[in-house]
Structures are given as C-alpha cells and as structure tokens.
C-alpha cells in the first residue's frame, strides 16, 4: 500500500509541472495510399499527446486542423506507422504507408489499461486478425475458429457435435484439477466459459463405470461469440505477460476486441454464406456372412436362427450400413450478416446483426446462432471519451446423443453392437422394432429424442477514458472499464416412453436451467511522462473487481405422460442444484519506461484476494517484469543485415484458484424413512487450501532481414506451477475418501518460432506467408503424495498418471505378457511439436487464395472406440487378419485386452490438416452508385486431413475440456465444410 501512495505522490508532483500548450494552428490535408498507390480508407491521423485526430475517407483522403508545431502520427493496422511534424505537411500531401509484415507497429495491450507497440514488447504475444480468424474458411463456432492459429497452444475439439466444445491449452498443462482454459476478455468484459452438463448421465449412466465424470460433453459457452464481429485477438500465453490479470490468468488470457465505428460515410455491408457439411470419415462396418452371423451366439439353436435371419435379410436385400445411415447425411448451412459502420467526429458506431443456421450430419442435430451487436464510441469533449459495446446472442445447439455410456443408448454405442443384417427401420405403422443386439434402436433414438442447449446471452462493456491533466510532457488519464456478461442456458433432453430403452423409466425429461452473471470493472489512473524525446514513462495504478454468480438447477422426471415434456407430467422427479459465487479484488501498479524507443522496461505488481481461497482476506502478490532491447534502434548494431534486432525477457507470476468449495467439509443429503438426514461428504475439505501458483520466465529474440521481408520471432519459456491441486486419496478411516491437496510442482518448457515473410510483392502478385513452429515439454518436478492415476478408465485401458519426474501428460497402462506386472509408459498426450502455416496469395488485387495448414506431430490418444466395436463384433476389420497369424483381428485385439495389455489403445494421433482453404474474388468497379464492391468466394474447412489415426478424428475428448483430452470413446464424428459466400458493400 505504501508503494501505491509513493507512486501517486510522484504522479501529483509530475502534474504540478508548469504546462503550456499554445500555438498557432494550421490545416493539413492529403491522401494516403499503400505501396502500390491503392487508397487506404480508415487510416488514423492523430496529433501526438492530444485527443485530436481524424480518419481517411473511402478515397484515402483526410483534412485536419492542428497546432502548427504538432507531431502527427499516422497509423493503420497492418502498416508501419509514421510520425511527421505538422510543419512539413502541406495541403494535398501524398503519403504512402509501408506494409508491416512483422506487425512491429501493432499495438498490443500489455497492462489492464496501457498498450505498447509490438516492436517494444518483452513477450511473444500472439495475435489473430479478423482475416485469419474468419476470412479463410469460417468455422461453425468461434472456439473452433481459433484452432491451428495460436502458436504455443494445444487446441483440441472434443467432438464433432454441433455447437462447439474446444479445449485451448496455452503453453502446456497449467493445472490438473483446476481451470485449464484461458480467461476470455471481450472489450473489457470477462466472459464466462463454463461447460454446463445437460444431465444426460441420467440416461447414459456414463459415470457409473471406471470414471466418475458425467462425460456429457456439453459445449463451452465461449462458442456463443460471433467471429464476424471480431477485429483482433491477442493471446497472453502465460504469467509473464498476463500477471496483471492476477488470479485468473494462470491458463493465459485471450483478449478480444470487436469492430468499432469510424468517422466517415456510413458503410453497409451484407454477406451471405451457403454451404454443406459432411462427415469427415467413417470407420466402416463389418460385412457379415452367414457363418459370421451364426458365430454371434455360442448357443447352437440361437446360432442357427441367426444364420437363417442373415439368409432372409440377404434374400430380401435388407443388409444395411447403419453407420452410413446415421452419420453420412449432408447438412445445409446458411449464414447471413448485415453490418453497418459510420460516425462523425464526435460519435461513431458499429452495428451488426447475423443469423447462422446449420444442420448436423446426423438427422435432428444442428446449430443456430442469432446475434445483435452495437458498439458506440462518443467523445463528450476533448478530454473525455466513452465507448459502449452491447451484444445479444441467442444460440441453440441440438447435439444428439453420442459418446460413452453404460446403458447402450447413445447412437455410437448402440451402433457398436448392431450387425448389418437386422432390421431397425419402422414398419408401415411407424413403429420401430426393438434392437435384439442392444439396449436401443439407434434409428428410433434419433427420430424421437431431443438434446438441446439454448442460450440467451447479454454482454455489455463500458469504457471511459478521461484526460485529467495534460501538460506538454505529462498526461494523466483516468481509464475505467467494465461490464456485465449474463446468460440463461436452458438444456432440454427428452426421451419419450416409446424408446426401446425407456421400458423401465417410461419416458424421461431432463430440464436444466442455468443463470450465470459475471461482472467486472477496472478503474485506473495512467500517467504518461516524457521528460525528453528519449525517455517515456507510463505509470498506471488501479483497482479491479470481478464477481461471478452461477446457479444451475437440473430436474430429471421419469414416467412422463405420453407426448409431454414438462417435468410436472412425470411420475417421479429428482432435482439437483449447484451454485457457485465468487468475488475477486485486485490492486495493481505498473510502470513502463521507454528509452530512445529502443530499450523498454516494464514492472508491475498485482495484489489479489478472492472468496475462493482458503483465506478470503489474504492478499496474494503477483509481480511481473519485462525488458526489451532493440539493438538496431539503439545503434549498437548497424542496420546492415538486420533491419531490426530485439532481445527480450519477461517474468511474471499468476495463480489458479482451488476448486469452488474445496475448502469446506460439506454435509450431503442422505434421507431415511422420510426424515431429512445429513452425512459428511466423502470429499474432505481443507481450510488451508492455497491457490496454484505459477511463475513464468520467457526470453526471446526478434529480428527482421531483407528489408523486413523476412521476420523471425523466437521465444523460449519456462513455466513452473507450484502447489498444484490434486484430488488425493486419503485413509478411509478418516471418514473421507478424497481430499484436495496442494500436491506438488509442475514445469512446462517450450520453444516457439514464428517466421513472417513476403516472398513476392509485385504489383500483380502478392504472396505473404507465416510459418510457426512450437513445442512444449512438461514434467512433474515434485509430488508429495503417491502417483495418481486419473483422466481415463483405469490402467487396463490406458490412463494418465501424475508421477514425480515424469511428464504430466504421460499415458501409462498394463502391458502383459511383455510386462507381467506393474505399469508401463505407453505414450504421451503431448505433441512432439506443432507447426502451422498461413498463406495469402493475391493476384491483380482481385483474386485471393488463402489457406491454413496445421501439423501436429505425434501425441497419443487413448482410443477405445475400436475396442467397443470389437466387443460388439461389428468393427470393419473384425474378420481381417493384418498380421497373417490366422487369428482374426477382432478376437485378437480382444484377446490382447483380456490378456492384460493396454498397448493397443494408446495410438499416435498426429495429423497434417488443411484446416482452411479459401478462394475469393473481388469486384470493385460496379456500375451505379449503390454498390461499392462485391466479394465472392468459396471455402473449405477441414477438407484434407492426413493421419494414421484409426478413430473418427484425431481431435477428440470424451471428458470435455479438462486435463484429460484425447480419450476417444465413440464420439460424434468430425465433419468437413464447404461454403460459398458473397459479400456486398453498399
């Protein structure tokens, strides 16, 4: 606290310096173009150290009255900015801006209220532009659109079910039981990204098996966002960059900026996409013969009956491919976006409204998203400006029923035991026959059930910037940011009584209702002080608060009246409620110093406390510091070979909260004979539970050669997580079975290399390319409890094991007879390395080809899909004999499992994927005044994948977005998309 006071006293002194800002005025005007003379609309022309400024119009022209001694900063995203003295500017100035491939002039948000140019940055902050996010081959949901685009991230889709569900892990494993997903901040609003279960476990009983997770595979709520509204994304990958976000930044922070209005004529743009979705890959089904049909039963009479059944089916031509029938449908998609921007010198706005509707590859599944956004910026006077962002989203996902279950009811598990010669189609009265080989008839299930997530969401952000004091050398601003994110999620899972598996329950209706309210604000004071041209100091200090309130109510009704879905129509009803509430408070101070625009020093500290911690009153301290030295700018090196050479290093700390409620020993309901009873929970609480603490050190070198046509960014990081949380087994005589403990330390190390290049830049052909390479290695450096098996179904099927001295993501299992006892390391979920490449080729400024290719090298999954198909005697290669030993592959694999080996389930899930390919053509000379331009394009998403992985898709996660991604249990198959789009600018 004393520190803060000193700081503020310092600020006051600075403010008292005499100030003078009186000069004659002059009017400047001109036209700004790119290197090829193409006019650039929307370029910012700002007077240094004032809020005066304007933008260029559609023809690239501007006009502004400025003090005659002013410095003018001309900047535009994607181009190098220029600072020009007003004296040297005339009316009718012609200015050319140089393209900035290395994005050195890109402005990066480094503090809660301050920014710095990339050239001065001490961290490797990743960015995704609107073009990269959504301009190649749009994905269904925002989270899917991130995939393959973040250097240093391991991004994995949970399944192909409509509505999203993606795990994003930045720089390795940051937590095992805590939050592994980054914090999403949209225009200053902290967005909730909870995945809320729809209660499907009541039907599937998936949690009754080897893993207590419900495996309901809900979507993540960040999927609601509209990629079309986003202008830029910044990714703070670890504590060294994100420490100023405090306790919620351990898994990284993804800062999203949406589009804003610009001064000038109102522009209206309408775009329409039409496309199709197909399954990416099918596994195939076993082709039965009379003999193999008979072998499905060991009972001679039943076997003979099966042979007869097969002969009859064959004679009637009723041999089916149910996998094809279920998954190989074509889904139609459409997406319409109408946007408008405009404004005058005081007020500007961006408005968009959009609707997307997509059918899934399974009948009855699909996704719909409708959104409205209005962003308004207003200058109250020369010193105060405000910005408001509002967003309403309605999204609805029909996700079907797939994945693991113990009742044989999901589409995929039902298919796994359904041979091709039985009849599942309805008779002439519409009645479906019962499946004699499984608990459910998959065609009936698809036709009658419903599993829907419907969200209504409002997010509003508020931003105010007020110049409190303005001097020639010192400016002090108040910056306030905050917002509200509220949604209501309704989940509806209906299983009518006609369903084969509803014979006992006679109709089940599961209705969930979730309300989530998140609010946050940051109030800060920022002082910029430039005692001379060579020194710049930016001091910021402030307070933050974040509140969360989550309330989930789930009702399960069984014996529901025919045709009804309301839970009060049920004969039996059970209810569950889960609430979660927190408040975090923070105080931060940050100082940034710039010497000669070449050496940059940053130091900051955040004090944080939270109701989630064991001691809610205790402030935890998270410091950070960074330094970057630009050797070419400093003059240490000649600008010969290197156009730009920068060394940088940064350090920071962050934390991850203990799971909600882990500090309490709770009493759970356990009733008897009509009286309410309370019994201690099997999970013990720990009032001394501490947050997981993270320190990250990052160092790197950035350089540009060949007149900045080739740019390199190389980083190394070392991230340590101390006191990571584990749910440990405790002696049961204590009355508890498990307890959260701060169990040990974990380390992640990795390298990230980014290369930007412009191999060709002629007037008619332009090719820009970026290539990124990265890998991460994790290690459990300390574990105070015995090794813990977790994240899958046990060691006989391959499981993760947290063990001292080993990788956190190792996969272990039994491996008899080679290793008769004990566990063997069978693989590792972590990829050996990943690479991506984004390319854009433009011909004659009209035809543009863009593509994104992503290579994940190695990294293992636990694939149990094939085992289940083997158990159901339906795998496509069941009768094959790949190794020629005379034993069919199906029984051989089952034999391997029964013999005690999990080796076969741990499979390399590396892939090379052309995630996005887009081809666009622009017409910009349209007759008439109404239409200014038309862009058309075709695009392909996930169309080409090269992988040896045997499942539906190498990207899979039966357990959702937590620690253990990559477990494959009959998921919803992944899909590929082809799209035609037209955008018309008015």
């Amino acid at each position: 606290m004393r520190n803060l006071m000193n700081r503020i006293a310092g600020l006051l002194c600075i403010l008292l310096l005499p100030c003078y800002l009186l000069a004659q005025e002059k009017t400047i005007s001109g036209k700004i173009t790119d290197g090829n003379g193409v006019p650039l609309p929307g370029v910012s022309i700002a007077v240094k150290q004032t809020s005066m400024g304007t933008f260029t119009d559609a023809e690239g022209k501007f006009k502004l009255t400025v003090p005659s001694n002013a410095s003018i900063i001309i900047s535009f995203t994607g181009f190098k900015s220029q600072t020009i003295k007003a004296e040297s500017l005339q009316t009718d100035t012609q200015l050319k801006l140089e393209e900035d491939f290395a994005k050195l002039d890109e402005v990066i948000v480094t503090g809660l209220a301050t920014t710095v140019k990339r050239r001065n940055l001490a961290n490797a902050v990743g960015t995704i532009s609107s073009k990269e996010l959504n301009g190649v081959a749009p994905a269904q949901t925002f989270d899917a659109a991130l995939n393959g685009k973040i250097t240093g991230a391991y991004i994995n889709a949970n399944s192909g079910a409509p509505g999203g569900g993606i795990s994003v892990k930045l720089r390795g494993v940051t937590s095992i039981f805590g939050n592994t997903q980054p914090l999403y901040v949209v225009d200053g609003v902290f967005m909730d990204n909870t995945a809320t279960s729809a209660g499907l476990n009541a039907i599937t009983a998936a949690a009754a098996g080897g893993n207590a997770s419900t495996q309901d595979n809900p979507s993540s709520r960040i999927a609601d966002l509209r990629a079309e509204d986003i202008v830029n994304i910044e990714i703070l990958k670890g504590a060294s960059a994100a420490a100023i976000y405090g306790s919620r930044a351990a898994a990284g922070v993804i800062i999203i900026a949406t589009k804003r209005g610009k001064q000038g004529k109102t522009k209206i743009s309408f775009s329409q996409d039409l496309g199709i979705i197909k399954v990416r890959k099918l596994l195939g089904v076993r082709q039965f013969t009379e003999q193999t049909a008979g072998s499905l039963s060991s009972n001679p009479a039943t076997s003979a009956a099966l042979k007869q059944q097969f002969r009859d089916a064959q004679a009637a031509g009723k041999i089916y491919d149910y996998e094809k029938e279920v998954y190989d449908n074509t889904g139609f998609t459409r997406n319409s976006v109408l946007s408008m921007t405009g404004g005058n010198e005081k007020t500007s706005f961006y408005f968009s409204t959009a609707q997307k509707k997509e059918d899934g590859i399974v009948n009855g599944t699909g996704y719909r998203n409708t959104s409205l956004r209005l962003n308004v910026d207003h200058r109250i006077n020369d010193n105060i400006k405000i910005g408001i962002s509002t967003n309403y989203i309605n999204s609805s996902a029909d996700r079907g029923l797939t994945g693991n279950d113990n009742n044989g009811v999901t589409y995929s598990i039902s298919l796994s035991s359904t041979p091709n010669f039985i009849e599942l189609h309805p008779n002439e009265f519409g009645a479906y026959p019962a499946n004699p080989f499984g608990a459910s008839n998959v065609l009936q299930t698809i036709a009658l059930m419903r599993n829907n997530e419907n969200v209504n969401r409002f997010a509003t952000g508020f931003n105010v910037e007020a110049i409190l004091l303005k001097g020639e050398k010192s400016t002090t601003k108040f910056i306030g940011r905050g917002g509200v994110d509220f949604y209501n999620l309704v989940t509806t899972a209906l299983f009518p009584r006609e369903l084969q598996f509803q014979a006992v329950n006679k109709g089940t209706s599961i209705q969930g209702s979730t309300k989530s309210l998140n609010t946050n604000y940051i109030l800060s004071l920022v002082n910029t002080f430039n005692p001379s041209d060579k020194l710049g100091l930016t001091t910021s200090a402030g307070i933050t608060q974040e509140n969360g309130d989550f309330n989930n109510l789930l009702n399960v009704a069984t014996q529901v009246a025919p045709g009804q879905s309301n839970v009060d129509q049920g004969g039996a009803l059970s209810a569950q409620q889960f609430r979660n509430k927190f408040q975090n408070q923070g105080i931060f101070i940050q100082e940034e110093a710039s010497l000669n625009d070449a050496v940059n020093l940053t130091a900051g500290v955040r004090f944080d406390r939270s109701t989630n911690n064991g001691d809610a009153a205790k402030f935890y301290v998270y410091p950070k510091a960074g330094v970057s030295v630009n050797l070419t700018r400093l003059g240490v090196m000649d600008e010969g070979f290197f156009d730009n050479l920068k060394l940088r290093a940064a350090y920071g700390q962050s934390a991850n909260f203990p799971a909600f409620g882990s500090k309490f020993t709770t009493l759970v309901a356990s009733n008897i004979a009509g009286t309410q009873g309370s019994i201690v929970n099997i999970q013990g609480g720990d009032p001394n539970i501490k947050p997981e603490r993270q320190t990250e050190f990052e160092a790197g070198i950035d350089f540009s050669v060949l007149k900045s046509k080739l740019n390199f960014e190389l980083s190394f990081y070392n991230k340590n997580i101390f006191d990571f949380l584990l749910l440990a087994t405790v002696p049961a005589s204590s009355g508890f079975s498990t307890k959260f403990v701060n169990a040990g330390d974990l380390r992640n190390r990795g390298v990230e290399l980014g290369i930007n290049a412009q191999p060709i830049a002629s007037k008619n052909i332009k090719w820009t390319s970026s290539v990124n390479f990265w890998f991460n290695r994790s290690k459990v450096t300390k574990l105070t409890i015995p090794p813990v098996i977790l994240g899958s179904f046990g060691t006989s099927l391959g499981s993760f094991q947290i063990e001292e001295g080993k990788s956190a993501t190792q996969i272990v299992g039994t491996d008899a007879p080679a290793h008769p006892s004990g566990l063997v390391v069978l693989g590792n979920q972590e990829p050996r390395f990943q690479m991506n490449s984004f390319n854009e080729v433009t011909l004659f400024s009209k035809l543009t080809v863009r593509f994104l290719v992503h290579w994940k090298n190695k990294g293992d999954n636990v694939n149990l899909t094939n085992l289940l198909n083997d158990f159901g005697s339906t795998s496509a290669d069941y009768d094959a004999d790949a190794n020629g030993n005379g034993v069919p592959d199906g029984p051989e694999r089952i034999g391997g499992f029964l013999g005690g080996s999990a080796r076969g389930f741990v499979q390399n899930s590396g892939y090379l994927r052309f995630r996005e390919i887009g081809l666009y053509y622009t017409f910009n000379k349209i007759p008439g005044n109404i239409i200014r331009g038309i862009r058309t394009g075709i695009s392909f998403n996930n169309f080409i994948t090269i992988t040896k992985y045997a499942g539906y898709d190498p990207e899979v996660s039966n357990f959702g977005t937590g620690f253990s991604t990559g477990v494959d249990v009959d998921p919803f198959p992944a899909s590929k998309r082809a799209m035609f789009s037209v955008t018309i600018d008015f």
Partner: protein
Amino acid sequence: MKKLINLYTLALLLIAASLATSCKKEYGNLNSPTVEDYLKNASKDQLNGLISGALSGMRNNEGTYLDAVSVVGREIYRFSNADPRFVTELLGSGSTTLNNTGFYITNPWASRYRVVKNCNVLIEAATNSTQISAEEKKGYTGFAKTLKAYELLLNLNLTYTNGIRVEVADPNNLGPILNNTESITAIAALLDAAKTDLAGATISFTLTPGFTGLADAAGLIKFNRALAARVAVYRQQWSAALTALNESFFDLNGSFNTGVYSVFSTGSGDQLNPAFFPQNQAGEVRLAHPLYVTNIEVNDDRIGKATLRTASVSNSGLSSDRDVWVYTSSTAPIPVIRNEELLLIYAEANIQTPNLTAAVTALNKVRNTHNLPDYSGAVTQPALIDEMLKQRRYSLFFEGHRWIDMRRYNRLATLPVDRTGDDVWTAFPIPLTEQ
C-alpha cells in the same frame, strides 16, 4: 489546474473508498451445509439431521458387507456378470487372494468410517451446542457412541487380526491401527461409555421405524446392551454377556424379531435394500450354498430362506438351484440386532458358564419356533456348542454371522471348499489407503 487536482483527489478517494467498503467477504458454501457450521452452535434440527444421516449412512454398502462375509463364510454364492471377484478372490480360487484394493473391503470399510465420522461430528456438535439441555446432550452423545461402536465392530469383523483404527476424530492425525484384542476392548468400552451417557438422558430426536419400541432412553440402553452382549461373547466374557442380556431387550418368550433394523423406502433421497434380488433372476444372483439344504433338518421352516429356483445357475464351476430369500422385498429391513440372536447368545453364554439346562431351554425355544422338535442330542458342552452353532447358522442365515462364528470357534477349516485350490480366508486385509 486546481480543478484538475480536485478531480485527481476525487479519483484517489474513490479508490480508497472502494477498498475500505469491500472488506473481507465470505460466501460460504452455497450448495450444502458444512461441518464447520454445525460445529459452532448446532440447533436441535441440525443435530437430528446428523442422526438421520448416520442411520442412513449405516446402509451404505451393507449389501457388499453381507455378500463378502456370506461368500467367505460359504453361506451363499454371489454371481455377477459385472464382477468376477465374487467367485475368484473371495473364494480364493486358484492362486487368487484377497486384495487390499478390492471393493469387498474398501467400500464397506469406508462406509463404516463415514458413519463413525458423522457420529464424531454429532458428538462434537452436541457438545458445543448451547441450544440443548445437558440431558438432551447426553442423549445425542450416548446414541452416537452406540452407533460408532457398532460400525467399528462391523469393520473389525472383516479385518479381525489385522485390526482397525479406533481413534479417528482428527482426520489429519489418525490414531494407530490397534490389534484385534485392543480393538474389541475399545469397542466394549465405547458401548459402556454410551450406556453411561444414555442413563438419565432425554431423547429429543425421532428415530426410524427400525427402532420401534426402543426409541426412548430406556429402549436405547436396551439396544446398547444387546450389542454389548454380542461383543461380550466375541470376547468370551460369558457372565458379562449374561449381565448385558439382562439389561437388553432379550426376552426368552418374546418375538424373535424384536430388535433394531436398518429400514428402506422408495422415498426421495432414500435407499432400497441392497441385499434384495427378485427370485429366479439371471445375471446378478445370490444363491444359497448347496450344503444349506443338505444339512438342514426335516421340517425346519428356515428352508424358506433358500427357495427353489426354476433353473439352477452355474458359474466358474459353482452351481446352486436355490435363491437366497431372506430379504423378500426392496424395502425389507435388515436387522442390526434382534431377539433371536439374543436367545442364541443366551444359550451360548450358558453353555460356556456352564449352565447347560438353561442353554437347552433356549435352544429348544429356537427349534420349536422353527417347527423342529426338542433337542435330543447329548447334553454336553461340545455337543451343545455344535447345536448352538447350527441354530445360529440357520436362524441368522445371510445376516452376516456364520463366518465370524466359525472363526471364533476355530472351525473355518470345517467350512466346505467347493473347488480344488479354493481357500477359506480368516481376515480381510486393511485397505491400501490406510498404509
């Protein structure tokens, strides 16, 4: 300039104010009550909730416990498609042995200690509470100690010579694992302490229908002494057993079924009897060991506890054609202790005292009630012990006694071994997590 400084001061004040007003905040646990809350100053309703919770928790894994001791004691076969260990490890097939991570020990063990924990919380909460009278306090602690002793006894029945932990109130500082003698002595002492508390206590909590007739302080002392009688015969303290019986609900001429039960219902949040399976089921079955029928006397009505199936069931070289039919519905109660056992404890204590005439009277009471004539064998201590163990076998079938009885009379070797290489175990191992 001045105006601006004022603005600045204002902003500073704003920061200071917001920090001052948002002092320490605690939301507590929103989803369920916490032990910490209950320990502060519990209300009567909160304490009663802990009583119901403990009684409810006593039923957790009760089915597993009965299966485990009854399979090891060769009373029943338990066949399960989901778990082969009922016919392998529990019967010691081939080279298999009992495993210290096996569900048959870890699950009942943890469930019993969970109830012990609830009782310890109840004792501490009642002791700290200022909302109840001293007599009411004694009611809560006396009853909690009785339940705790019973739960500890069930675990000691499993682990026997491997012992149990008795001091478990502090989860971070658990007491040592005591040997069998130390453990059962501690259990007896706990029952005595409970009796002391219950004397002069006021019972201000409602018990389940399983306590019908015994739900007041006097009744609970009778329940406590019935358990003490069982513990006394386990300790071979025959006169102590007779003393305890005198203070219990023992009634030579009373109904055999008087006693205390775990009850089940279909109500919300309640449980169904886990030891009930419908007759003639396939897949998941409990079958009477074939010797149950072979060795039963003619006309014994206890044949009704092993009904003939429509088809016999075989699994792994074991076969039986009779279902276990002790609990005949999903809401049938399971006895904690009942008068029929007390009669047999009375007979046993008198055989050992020795007071053989009294013993024969009690044994005949049991025989006659089950449609058998008077005992006609030799009236000698060894012969009567045989007869007493036989009556216990049939009267207490699938109530969890046979294996323990044979063990305490060193007769485990006389239990049938159905397959070559099978073993009859003496004790379950202590769960791995305790080591």
